[in-house]
């Protein structure tokens, strides 16, 4: 919050608290380790910490593991078997879950993918443009607009959702993907504007100046100098947009009422509603299918996720 706590992934200074635990404290820690590290007290203290962490971690992850295992079990075992061992692999939950709704589950995943791709493109283009203006250009009412932009990050979406719904339904956009994509094309997820502004501020201005001297205008500086340098911020935006849009329930619940247009979260909800308590297995199976893309993004994009959170404090 103070300048001291500035934690930006800027190109020239590697940010602390991100990625690997490289930081200014590390050499010091090493030093103290050299003299004290192998003392018995310290080792048992570390051992205790590991025990606590492993226990806590197992507790955290157990429900997820149990869901995976349960999805591979015959239905009735879900209500009797709290353990993680599998006697046989039961794929029937997946096949029955896949075709349990009006459309095969893949249909909803494609719908979700369309919304996600549209949202990612929208956020990347519109937010980076706005961020360039805020970070590099001087213009009338800049401070006012920047302040408004920051305020909109904290604005609860409920105060706009009713009129937004009226607006989009009058254009005839209910049961289309437009209400979920168009706001992103208009940079309404101001959060990413802020993230990119922070990032661009860390890019040395000399680079712009050099390009300007060579006769480049702003579009060119933006496209040729700034954009290529802000790939990490773009990656963070892509990943967060992916996860948030993939999980987005409220927007889809309001705008998509035709089963043909369902995205994964509303399809799952319809699944919960349509099933009695007897088909938890296939419900679990499809829940896992729905979490899989997020999990994969987490596996491969962790670095950017953690950097993004540490920088800006998003979920």
């Amino acid at each position, binding site marked *: 919050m103070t300048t001291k706590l500035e934690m930006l992934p800027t190109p020239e200074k590697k940010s602390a608290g991100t990625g690997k635990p490289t930081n200014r404290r590390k050499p010091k820690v090493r030093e103290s380790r050299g003299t004290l590290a192998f003392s018995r007290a310290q080792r048992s203290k570390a051992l205790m910490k590991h025990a606590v962490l492993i226990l806590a971690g197992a507790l955290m992850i157990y429900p997820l593991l149990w869901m995976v295992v349960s999805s591979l079990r015959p239905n009735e075992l879900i209500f009797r078997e709290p353990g993680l061992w599998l006697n046989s692999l039961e794929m029937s939950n997946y096949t029955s879950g896949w075709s349990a709704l009006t459309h095969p589950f893949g249909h909803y995943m494609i719908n979700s993918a369309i919304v996600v791709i549209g949202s990612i493109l929208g956020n990347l283009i519109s937010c980076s443009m706005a961020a360039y203006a805020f970070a590099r250009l001087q213009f009338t009412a800049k401070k006012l607009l920047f302040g408004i932009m920051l305020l909109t990050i904290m604005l609860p979406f409920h105060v706009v959702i009713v009129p937004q719904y009226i607006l989009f339904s009058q254009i005839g956009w209910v049961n289309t993907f437009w209400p979920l994509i168009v706001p992103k094309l208009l940079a309404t997820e101001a959060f990413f504007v802020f993230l990119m502004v922070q990032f661009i501020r860390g890019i040395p201005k000399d680079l712009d100046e050099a390009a300007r001297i060579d006769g480049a205008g702003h579009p060119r500086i933006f496209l040729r100098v700034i954009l290529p340098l802000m790939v990490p911020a773009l990656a963070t935006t892509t990943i967060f947009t992916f996860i948030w849009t993939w999980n987005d329930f409220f927007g889809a619940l309001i705008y998509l009422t035709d089963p043909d247009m369902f995205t994964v979260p509303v399809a799952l909800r319809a699944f919960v509603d349509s099933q009695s308590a007897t088909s938890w297995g296939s419900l679990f199976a499809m*829940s896992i299918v729905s979490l899989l893309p997020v999990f994969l993004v987490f596996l491969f994009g962790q670095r950017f996720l953690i950097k993004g959170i540490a920088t800006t404090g998003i979920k």
Partner: protein
Amino acid sequence: MSAISELSSISRRKGKATAEEKKANSRDNKAAYIFLLPWLVGLIAITIGPMLMSLYLSFTDYNLLQPPEWVGLDNFTRMLTDARLHNSLGVTFTYVFVGVPLQLAVALLIALVLDKGLRGLPFYRSVFYLPSLLGGSVAVAILWKQIFGTTGLVNQVLAMFGIQGPGWISDPSTALGSIILLHVWTFGAPMIIFLAGLRQIPIMYYEAAKVDGATTLQQFWRITLPMLSPIIFFNLVLQIIGSFQSFTQAFIVSGGNGGPSDSTMFFTLYLYQKGFGQFDMGYASAMAWLLLVIIGIFTAINFIASKYWVFYDD
């Protein structure tokens, strides 16, 4: 670091447009507004316009079919006597004021254990972080519904110890608690912010304290906590704002009705029912503005209170 600190620094610096800045203005204005165009259109058409519209609608009776009818303060006086609304406020306040401190406490605790150059830190961090990525999804809410069901995982485990657990989410006294637990479960994101904050505390402070013979606990109270207070404050503000808006988990766990007996009827859930269930758009808009005012008040209180406990080291 954050949008919050940016905002306060803007208000501190305001009204100082230098001559240099003015000169630059003439050069960049056109380009700047072209770059800002999508954002500006969105700001007006998707944010500010609808905001004003919903303010107007909050003084009307509107059901989407007939044109809005001006009813003055009717919606607001109705809110005064709407017992379900009062209940939903109570549920939401409980969720926010129990869930947020609990979640942040766990996040801080784990961050402290993780901090001191522990081996395997990236692994642990991933394990603790994963739930906060998945926690907002319908899938996890479904899982929660099963786990805390009458024959769910929790009760199966309890049964192994011979304890007959209640139907956690079908019992009005424990249903909200189950959802709060889901919120606590997603402590990974604030934990990572805490970890980043802990890294910024200069090690020399601890070394000096050690030389002076300070205990670990003293170091925590006198160094870690004050130095970390801006981060705690930042997490607190963000989590409170976010938690007031929680919707998905309560919706899925309760099957969309906020039950049993309204015990998980979050304010947002009630708003959704009013607006998109009964198409009482005027009332829903009034509720939305009430929510905005409530969040605004608590954020303001947070900022005022922060003067007394947040320590800025500059």
